[in-house]
């Protein structure tokens, strides 16, 4: 009698849990699906039939969004900015972290703390002076101007991850290299750099996502149509005269779909990288 009640209660719990999980999963997928499906409707079809599948599949929204929204130019801008920034972050970040993590340098700890203080400076805190600075340096409206800012803005978390990881490498490995006559730089290049591959993966994933998805820095630093990133491009496109909802959906889907495909292919890697960055502290 007692046991029977226990089993029943357990099943009910499980049912409830699945119900909650499925509802939440639907809540997450449905909005994305809504944008995607409606991107294949004409505007008339959309206003009459928001929920359903398109009465007649129209691909017309896509060429319009791509052409008027300058989509491919802006996607390449975003790609260039992200790739160069992340490459520089890995290289410069690892280089700078090595002496901080492994060597007793005068001022080394101060430099580390200064880097970490950057974690507490939101973009809006420096926005106004940064705009003035970039204008003075002639970097406003350039991809290079954004690249510098992204490297600088992502360095704190990058250095934090690299230093944490490098401190975990046994000293003996390095000492052995020194005894064998390896210089500091040689040890770094031959021993440390290959050993921090997991940290490099974390830095690349975190950095790429943060930079690719950023909207605020392009908003304040870029105002020419050719040099926008794809996020700012969406904002600009949405304010064009006569751009309809369905046109915008096509633009948004063009941003979302590659991202989701990439995510599905690399999901284990991405989730691990994103959590490692947070938990390593």
């Amino acid at each position, binding site marked *: 009698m007692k046991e029977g009640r226990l089993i029943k209660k357990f099943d009910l719990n499980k049912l409830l849990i699945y119900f909650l*999980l499925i509802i939440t999963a639907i809540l*997450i997928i449905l*909005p*994305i699906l*809504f*944008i995607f499906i409606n991107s294949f409707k004409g505007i008339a079809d959309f*206003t009459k039939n*928001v*929920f359903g599948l398109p009465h007649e599949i129209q691909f017309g929204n896509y060429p319009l969004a791509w052409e008027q929204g300058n989509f491919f130019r802006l996607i390449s801008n975003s790609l260039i900015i992200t790739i160069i920034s992340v490459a520089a972050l890995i290289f*410069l970040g690892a*280089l*700078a972290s*090595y*002496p*901080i993590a492994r060597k007793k*340098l005068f001022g080394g700890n101060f*430099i580390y703390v*200064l*880097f970490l203080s*950057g974690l*507490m*400076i*939101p973009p*809006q805190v*420096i*926005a*106004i*002076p940064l*705009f*003035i*600075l970039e204008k003075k340096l002639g970097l406003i409206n350039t991809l290079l101007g954004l690249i*510098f800012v992204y490297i*600088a803005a992502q*360095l704190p978390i990058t*250095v934090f991850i690299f230093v944490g990881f490098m401190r975990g490498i046994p000293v003996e490995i390095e000492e052995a290299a020194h005894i064998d006559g390896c*210089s500091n730089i040689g040890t*770094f290049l031959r021993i440390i750099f290959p050993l921090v591959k997991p940290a490099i993966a974390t830095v690349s994933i975190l950095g790429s*996502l943060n930079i*690719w*998805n*950023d*909207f*605020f820095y392009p908003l*304040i630093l870029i105002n020419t149509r050719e040099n926008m990133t794809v*996020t700012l491009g*969406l*904002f600009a496109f*949405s304010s064009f005269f006569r751009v309809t*909802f369905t046109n915008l*959906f096509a633009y*948004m889907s063009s*941003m979302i779909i590659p991202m*989701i495909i*990439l*995510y599905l292919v690399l999901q284990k890697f991405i*989730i691990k990288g*994103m*959590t490692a960055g947070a*938990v390593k*502290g």
Partner: protein
Amino acid sequence: MDKNKQKFLLYLIILPAFLIFLIFIIVPFISGLFISFTSWSGFNEIKFAGFKNFIEFFTNKNAYSALGRTLWLTFVIVIFQNITALFFAVILEKKIKGKDLFKVIFFVPVMLSSIVVGYMWSFIFDPMNGLFNKLFTFFNLSELAKINLLGNPKLALYTIIFTLLWQYTGYTMVIYIAGLSNVPPELNEAGYIDGTNNWQNFKYITFPVIAPAVTINILISVIGALKLFDQIYVMTGGGPGRTTESLTLLIYKEGFGASRLGFGTASSTILFILVLIISLILLTYLRRREIY
């Protein structure tokens, strides 16, 4: 001599990263502090104004309401995001069929750009053609269908908070799952043998072990909420009226719209002090709870 050369080289390899960080973060940060004590508009002569901007900030209703609103939305987001995430993390840590699939799905919004998410929900909440409107109309609930979730001064802020939870709870959850995987199952079993129930086990065994994950998650969600900008900017632009205007939006409007650089940077300074104080309090308080 060789040793000195080696030392010099070590400083040299820090230099490139350090210079970029110095020029593009530290220099703007310090000049911002400086500008906040002036009445500069970007064009006129730079004149020292003392604490005028700061006094104005705390006497200007728009400014101090933006500060209060920022604190309130941060509080709401942190509480809901962490409770929901921890709840789902505990569920998905158990042996449940399809848990990996749910984890993957819940993490999808983290991948999307905040501005895409902002637009997406704007369309869904759109009072004319939005999903919500049509749904309520379909069920003949015309009173509910008339509610403009982003146009209503009382609801707009919470609508935005909802979209934020939608986007970032998955991230918080995944960090909690990583923390939960550190709980040795023997500990829970030992608890059961001693006669504890599920809740007691969670409170006395699981929660202390995941304390580092709690610290990092609260910190991430606090800082994330304090610097929230994109979603508000594209969903309401701070409106209706100024009912969703956060500190970040105020800074943007003052600095880039009204060209009041002194007042804008003073607001920036206040935002920074806020982040600093809250982070330090949280770190000292939460770190004390950690057992490792």
